[in-house]
């Protein structure tokens, strides 16, 4: 060959892409997009978004595309493990599944035969909670929850207790029609592709505006038309100020309030009495309004009455007041004037006023109309859906504060005052929402008995103190103290308190802690260092671990694996069946009710089993009623796919809603043996599109409500009335004042009275209050943001994603740099009430001047996830978790230590963190992160120095098999 002669390349432009395309649902995060997996030679060639899928419509994020590397991760567990050394050392022996199941069954059956609550069963970010919760119910333990108490419960609960739907996964912006979109805080997590698609759509319109309210300008905030760098934890004050301005200027939708909310309902004004603040009701328990036309008190059912928003009236000789008078009186207090708020939230008065004017103008002067005939629940026919095109979304940045529930409620109240809930251009519910406020059922678990189910799902929605899970002395019944007086509405449980409470034996000791996919020994705990200690702490007298037995299931060697006594290795998401059900958190959109499955795409080459199969088998081995037939044979011998098709929660209602009965029924219908194949043939999802007249005003839309009732999504076929004034909150407050059968313990009375407010208002986050009471030592705020390409802990081990981000700095404002004499890459101490960390800082401008921040969950423990011990994640990266206390130890009342959580929902308050910063001294400046942790031993570590994924596929590309020029010249390092 003459190398100096130009050679033309023959490019193969139509190589074979795949032998087969299999469709399933992505699980690289909580977004649940549809994916097409291209298989070539039985290996994954390419993963792309499914164009027909209602969630992602063909697009796919960085995490989704990196699914190939997740499947090929060297951190995958390979066989069941039994601990041989001390807990935390990572010393295990491999055992067979038969032995593993035998051990688990023995441990669990002992508990079930004596005291089932000695099992604490907590799962992480799994998507099978309708199965796991039901399993806990059948086992008979009240001690069950998932990751929501750490993550989302403030958003879910605030919405469900106010408007019957919520941000998070139960609602979405009407991206098609909205003209003004306000995003509160970091939201680069749940629902991530739909939000990105929506932002793209919104920004492409000329008459639109996107406002981001976030202390930090990253991700979505970077493309906002206006960024408002608010002080963390004060969003509620901003909302107050906006509401103040709107009310003062009469910019509210009175008609909407009158028709669809409880604004006119009459409330007893009877201070110091048992009915004070409750709604006046007639003999049929129907709430009452004052009709201005005939000057009479009448039932709310008479919707045509011209009912009063204001005034004082008499009912049964007691004074009654429309709830709106109470609400507006509170919200018009001078303390909410922009002039009085501005300096507390770091937003200028003019900005607050201008944003409010823009919201009002968009809502009331840019009304939009969709011409569709529809009928409301009162039989009134409408020729169009009219909408006020202002929309809002909030998630992490609101949720993870101790005032998150009230802040989120305030946002919903703002939306309602504008008349922008479930209208064109506003915020829309996703099926099976809206539900009646407050949705059923109540939490089960008041009675826990040997060998007996608890009689319902462990998680639910209390509406009064009677629904709490407390004993006769008002002590908590659950190990995490959910549904107790400490956090009465903890609708997702408190996973973050389980280890602490089980270790302390408070309220009682447990025997087995059973966890799935919850990285509690690292980034899913507050105060990680102490949490780890509690997992290994032993009773001085007996020498036994204080938490006697730990069973853990995960697909990967996470930081939590070494702390388990028995490890049940799970499959990856591409190797399993799964069900994303309308009974749990489905993939619905506002236009359609939809659910989905995952199907096994490839066969695991390891000795692992899908956790759900294991749980179903354990259920059968333990003889749990729902999991065995009458002769005690296994009810679902073929595992989860068997359960998905054949389980019925109620007659005709199963995990999947599509293709029931003869294959043509949706929602309700007999078991269809072919159902799962129908899902597979349809891309692993089913979507039921609502008719055009069902799509908006769902809370009053007759066609929609009839359908929702028929489907069993709502318990009664009645309109859903948004509860601006919350009687449920008042019932708890009254209990705090000593009324009713259940009264809080003395040390919690003040707390209940203070925070259970029927009219939500902002209060200082707890750690802020603590700081104010302690000479203001910690004046700075510390929060995290989520890298959109990597927000779940298992992402950072990914060979591709970790090339994008593998270390995090502490980002500080110019103001902080100046006042503390800091420059880029200085090593600093960041100190909180409970701990301190040593990290490197970087200065930036797009951040609130009093705030420091970092990326969430980049830091990894040395040895975990099969990363090499010198990985930057373990040597240069850090978690803020070490600084965040799990308990409020300095709480004003020293009688009890209370979790660092929202006082209403128990949501972990990990965004409340207050800190101070100072340069580390020359002696301390060793270039190392503090704290550092002992390396985790992992006997199965595999060293991979080169990733050449793709090489294995047959190469049709290069046709000319010539000697390569560089080999001819002789400069190749590989020359043979």
């Amino acid at each position, binding site marked *: 060959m003459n*190398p100096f002669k130009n*050679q033309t*390349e023959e490019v*193969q*432009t*139509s*190589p074979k*892409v795949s032998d087969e395309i299999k469709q399933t649902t992505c699980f690289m995060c909580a977004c649940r997009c549809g994916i097409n997996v291209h298989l*070539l030679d039985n290996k994954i060639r390419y993963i*792309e978004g499914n164009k027909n899928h209602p969630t992602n419509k063909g*697009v796919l*994020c*960085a*995490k989704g*595309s990196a699914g190939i590397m997740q499947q090929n991760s060297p951190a995958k567990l390979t066989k069941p493990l039994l601990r041989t050394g001390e807990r935390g050392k990572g010393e295990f022996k491999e055992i067979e599944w038969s032995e593993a199941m035998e051990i688990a069954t023995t441990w669990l059956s002992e508990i079930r035969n004596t005291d089932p609550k000695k099992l604490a069963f907590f799962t992480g970010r799994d998507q099978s909670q309708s199965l796991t919760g039901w399993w806990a119910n059948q086992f008979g333990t009240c001690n069950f929850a998932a990751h929501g108490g750490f993550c989302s419960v403030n958003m879910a609960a605030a919405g469900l207790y106010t408007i019957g739907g919520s941000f998070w996964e139960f609602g979405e912006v009407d991206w098609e029609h909205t003209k003004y979109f306000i995003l509160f805080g970091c939201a680069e997590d749940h629902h991530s592709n739909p939000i*990105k*698609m929506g*932002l*793209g*759509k919104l*920004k492409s319109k*000329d008459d639109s*505006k996107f406002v981001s309210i976030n202390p930090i300008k*990253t*991700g*979505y*905030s*970077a*493309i906002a038309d206006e960024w408002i760098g608010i002080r963390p934890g004060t969003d509620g004050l901003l909302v107050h100020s906006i509401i103040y301005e709107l009310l*003062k*200027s*009469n*910019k509210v939708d*009175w008609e909407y309030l009158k028709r669809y909310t409880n604004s006119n309902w009459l409330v007893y004004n009877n201070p110091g009495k048992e009915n004070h603040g409750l709604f006046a009701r007639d003999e049929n328990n129907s709430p009452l309004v004052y009709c201005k036309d005939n000057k009479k008190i009448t039932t709310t059912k008479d919707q045509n009455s011209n009912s009063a928003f*204001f005034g004082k009236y008499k009912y049964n000789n007691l004074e009654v007041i429309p709830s709106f008078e109470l609400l507006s009186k509170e919200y*018009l207090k001078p303390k909410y004037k922009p002039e009085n708020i501005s300096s507390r939230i770091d937003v200028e008065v003019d900005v607050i*006023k*201008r944003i409010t*004017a823009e919201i009002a*103008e968009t809502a009331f002067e840019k009304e939009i109309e969709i011409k569709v005939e529809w009928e409301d629940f009162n039989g009134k026919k409408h020729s169009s859906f009219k909408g006020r095109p202002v929309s809002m979304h909030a998630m992490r940045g609101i949720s993870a504060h101790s005032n998150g529930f009230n802040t989120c409620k305030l946002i919903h109240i703002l939306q309602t005052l504008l008349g922008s809930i479930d209208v064109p251009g506003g915020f829309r519910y996703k099926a099976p929402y809206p539900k009646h406020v407050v949705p059923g059922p109540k939490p089960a678990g008041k009675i826990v008995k040997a060998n007996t189910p608890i009689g319902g799902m462990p998680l639910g929605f209390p509406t009064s103190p009677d629904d709490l899970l407390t004993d006769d002395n008002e002590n908590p019944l659950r190990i995490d103290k959910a549904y107790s007086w400490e956090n009465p509405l903890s609708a997702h449980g408190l996973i973050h308190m389980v280890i602490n409470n089980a270790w302390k034996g408070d309220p009682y000791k447990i025997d087995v802690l059973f966890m799935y996919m919850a990285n509690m020994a690292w980034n899913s705990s507050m105060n990680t260092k102490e949490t780890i200690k509690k997992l290994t702490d032993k009773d001085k007298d007996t020498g036994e671990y204080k938490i006697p037995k730990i069973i853990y299931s995960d697909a990967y060697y996470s930081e939590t694996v070494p702390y388990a006594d028995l490890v049940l290795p799970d499959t990856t998401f591409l190797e399993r069946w799964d069900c994303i059900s309308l009974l749990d958190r489905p993939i619905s959109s506002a236009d359609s009710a939809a659910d989905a499955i995952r199907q096994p795409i490839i066969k695991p080459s390891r000795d692992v089993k899908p956790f759900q199969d294991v749980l179903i088998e354990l259920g059968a081995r333990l003889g749990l009623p729902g999991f065995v037939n009458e002769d005690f044979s296994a009810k679902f011998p073929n595992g989860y796919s068997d359960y998905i098709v054949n389980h019925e929660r109620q007659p005709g209602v199963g995990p999947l809603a599509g293709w029931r009965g003869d294959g043509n029924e949706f929602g309700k219908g007999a078991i269809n043996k072919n159902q799962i194949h129908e899902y597979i043939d349809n891309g692993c999802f089913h979507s039921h599109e609502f008719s055009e007249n069902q799509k908006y005003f769902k809370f009053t839309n007759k066609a929609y409500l009839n359908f929702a009732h028929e489907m069993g999504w709502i318990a009664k076929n009645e309109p859903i009335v948004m509860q601006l004034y919350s009687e449920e909150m008042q019932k708890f407050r009254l209990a705090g004042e000593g009324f009713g059968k259940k009264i809080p313990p003395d040390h919690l009375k003040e707390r209940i009275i203070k925070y259970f407010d029927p009219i939500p208002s902002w209060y200082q986050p707890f750690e802020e209050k603590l700081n104010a009471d302690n000479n203001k030592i910690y004046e700075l705020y510390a929060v995290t943001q989520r890298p959109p*390409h990597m927000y779940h802990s298992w992402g950072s081990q990914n060979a*591709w994603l970790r*090339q*994008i981000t593998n270390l995090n700095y502490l980002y500080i404002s110019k103001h902080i740099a100046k006042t503390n004499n800091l420059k880029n890459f200085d090593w600093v101490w960041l100190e909180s009430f409970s701990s301190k960390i040593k990290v490197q800082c970087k200065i*930036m*401008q*797009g951040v609130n001047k009093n705030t420091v921040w970092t990326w969430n969950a980049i830091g990894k423990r040395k040895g975990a996830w099969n*990363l*090499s011990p010198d*990985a930057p994640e373990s040597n240069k990266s850090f978690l803020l978790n070490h600084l965040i206390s799990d308990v409020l130890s300095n709480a004003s009342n020293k009688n009890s230590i209370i979790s660092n959580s929202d006082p209403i929902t128990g949501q972990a308050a990990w965004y409340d963190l207050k800190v101070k910063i100072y340069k580390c001294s020359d002696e301390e400046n060793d270039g190392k992160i503090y704290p550092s942790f002992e390396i985790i031993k992992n006997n199965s570590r595999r060293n991979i120095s*080169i990733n050449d*994924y*793709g090489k294995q*596929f047959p*190469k049709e590309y290069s046709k000319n098999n010539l000697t*390569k*020029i*560089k080999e001819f010249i002789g400069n*190749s390092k*590989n020359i043979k």
Partner: protein
Amino acid sequence: MTSLPKKQNKKLGLVIDLDICVGCHACAVSCKEWNTSGHSSPLHDIDPYGDDPTGVWFNRIHTFEVESEINGSKTVHFPKSCLHCSDAPCVTVCPTGASYKREEDGIVLVNPDTCIGCKLCSWACPYGAREYDEEAGIMKKCTLCVDKIYNENLPESDRVPACVSTCPAGARSFGDLGDENSEIFKLVEERNGYDLMPEQECAPTNKYLPPREKNDQFSSDKLSSVTQDNDFTFETWKEIIKDASK
């Protein structure tokens, strides 16, 4: 040295909308995923689980702050890959003819069989868009998914580069920028799309769309209160509002 084609029948390229790119890296990872098993397979990663993981990426997202004392800062997400220049210096500098521009569509490719890994092209490229594969010892780069955009094994609607089909925000478009009647050409016209670093005189095919300048859509920057009194009482407000709330 290597010649550029005398004419180009098409100018295939990308248009990237900086107004809506949220910097999520979806395009970068999808590109990596397609191409590691594609024309330039594999895109090696070295030390993927170690101290300094590095690999070949045809598309990288740079996020940075532009500071300004007057207007505060702007956070920019800037995706960057080969711009398939008409006057591509990476081609003319190539000593072996391995780096070449296709006459039929303007795509700049590297022939792995004739590349000697001398890296002259990466020195010549003003955009830093070339990717040297240490393990393979040859230069690699964005192929505009040449094995996808013409691939008859894929449905026609899927014949676009991986970065375009995956972008969640819809910030990426693909087409013939040499055709004045194409959608993509019109998009560039309409949005004042620009060349990256025109002073380098490479005539890049790819274009960037700047953030939209939005006209002030709102008539007022504050609301007028129903009560003139700045220190109004609730009772006075209520008296005024009562009739409005009918």
